[in-house]
């Protein structure tokens, strides 16, 4: 279900050669406290889960739609359920995890609002990343070419993409406000996946951020 950004070659600068993960995943991993319980929804081949287990002694679990992804995770000794974020999050008990992570998957869910609510029912904190449709290049494509954007972050043509609910950073912030969620941390990433030092609330972040990354919690 995840539309994986084409950034396999870009590695985190601080990682050791044996432990290099995609730079956006590295930024997520940096937010996770060691020794915690983590649910990675749409965990793919287990890149982030495996990294968290190896480097942060995290009790990690995964949920993944694709057969291949699940198989690869379990073959690495990672506990992963085959399932669907839209349907199967309901099975997890309240507060079972410290973090519920949804990386590059929100835009591919049928009901993003409900999924977001589930993340913060299951996890104390939610970490969410998604491609920003408010990025200048997306705007440029629509404005001047009249075409749906296609770029390394959104590599698949509109008629084949699994993504069904695009949003911008601003849309997401508005949704969090509407749902009464606390944005604990936020950042936007540029086209190579590196952190852009702009506040997420600013229009500039929405304009220049290719991907957005949020850590959320519930009020109170």
């Amino acid at each position, binding site marked *: 279900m995840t539309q994986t950004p084409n950034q396999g070659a870009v590695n985190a600068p601080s990682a050791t050669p044996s432990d290099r993960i995609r730079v956006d995943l590295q930024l997520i991993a940096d937010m996770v406290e060691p020794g915690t319980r983590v649910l990675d929804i749409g965990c793919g081949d287990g890149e982030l889960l495996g990294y968290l287990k190896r480097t942060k002694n995290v*009790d990690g*679990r995964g949920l993944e739609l694709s*057969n291949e992804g*699940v*198989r690869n*995770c*379990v*073959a*690495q*000794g*990672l*506990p*992963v*359920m*085959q*399932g669907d974020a839209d349907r*199967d999050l309901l*099975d*997890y*008990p309240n507060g*079972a995890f410290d973090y519920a992570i949804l990386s590059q998957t929100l835009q591919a869910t049928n009901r993003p609002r409900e999924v977001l609510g589930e993340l913060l029912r299951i996890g104390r904190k939610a970490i969410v990343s998604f491609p920003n449709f408010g990025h200048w290049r997306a705007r440029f494509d629509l404005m001047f070419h009249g075409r749906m954007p296609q770029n390394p972050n959104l590599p698949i043509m509109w008629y084949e993409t699994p993504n069904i609910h695009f949003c911008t950073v601003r849309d997401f912030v508005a949704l969090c406000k509407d749902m009464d969620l606390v944005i604990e941390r936020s950042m936007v990433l540029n086209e190579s996946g590196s952190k852009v030092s702009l506040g997420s609330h600013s229009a500039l972040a929405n304009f220049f951020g290719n991907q957005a990354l949020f850590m959320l919690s519930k009020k109170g």
Partner: protein
Amino acid sequence: MSIPAPVSRRALPGHQIVLGDRDKLRLDSGIEFGPFTLAYQTYGELNADKSNAILVCHALTGDQYVADDVHPITGKEGWWRAIVGPGKIIDTEKYFIICTNVIGGCLGSTGPKEINPETGKPWGLDFPVITIGDMVRAQTMLIDHFGIDSLFAVIGGSMGGMQVLEWCKSYPERVFAAAPIATSYRHSAQNIAFHEVGRQAVMADPDWCGGNYLLEGKKPARGLAVARMTAHITYLSEPVLHRKFGRKLQNRGGITYSFDHDFQVESYLRHQGKSFVDRFDANSYLYITRAMDYFDLSVEFDGRLAEAFRGSNTRFCVISFSSDWCFTTAESRRLAHALNAASCNVSCVEIESDKGHDAFLLDEPDFHMVLSGFIEGAAEARGLK
């Protein structure tokens, strides 16, 4: 069909142990049963702290010869030789593997064909009805005998998977990792229906003699063969039957306009039925199918399956096969959802295969990859070198 000479218990290679001598086995039916015998095989060596034991549980018509080079009756390799052995997924150089013939079985464990000490005659239908819970409770006595507090893993497919789940429900602290494969937390109505057809076929055979065929010197071979033929179809899938046989004829140019075995698939089933009666006892078949029918892990929790696993620290890996219509992926998912709801450490994988229920016994590289990853991950967590 000829009546094969009964295999003497003493002629069977491997271990046998008498259990329930003083503390009897309390059956789910309320009967205090014992002493009784369990036949079992072990492979590999138990380590000093007894932390490397894997219990492998067999399916309905399986037995304790999981990894022997030569099965004493069929002459073939053990039923999971592909998986259990030196350097294999369940590595006999690393783990101590135990496989018991279930109570009620017919390969050395106390079952309906053995002698009832009170009458000096074979038990027949006087043998008490047993359950999956009874089979597992009997196994715990053997595990106690080895002085093993906690098994590293309990692994099994089909009915073996039911035993795995029963272990996890009843003795969670004794199971570090569990792999229930191609199985369910309860036997479906469809499966009960097929079992009933099989039992009726056995009991309709005049040679069954009300269950006393051993005393009468007979054997309900035709009924048991029909039961096996029916069951065997449920273990396969249409694609695999089609690939193997299609509508191909058996050594003839055209159909014979008779009820002879014109089609290859018919010959195949007849062969399956015949070879089965040579190695299995009809009454055992009745008892063991009944045990599977009665299995429902959710029943004592008013249907709330998650309650069966509440507080469990066992690591689970639930594996199903896409073309298995006997124990479907949907049932495995229900199980995995319940494990999730109980906050258990669970993996759940559906393996793409067109080989039906029997896929767990066959060469399925994806299945082997998953099982091996799960066992290695668990071994690491257990600190097994």
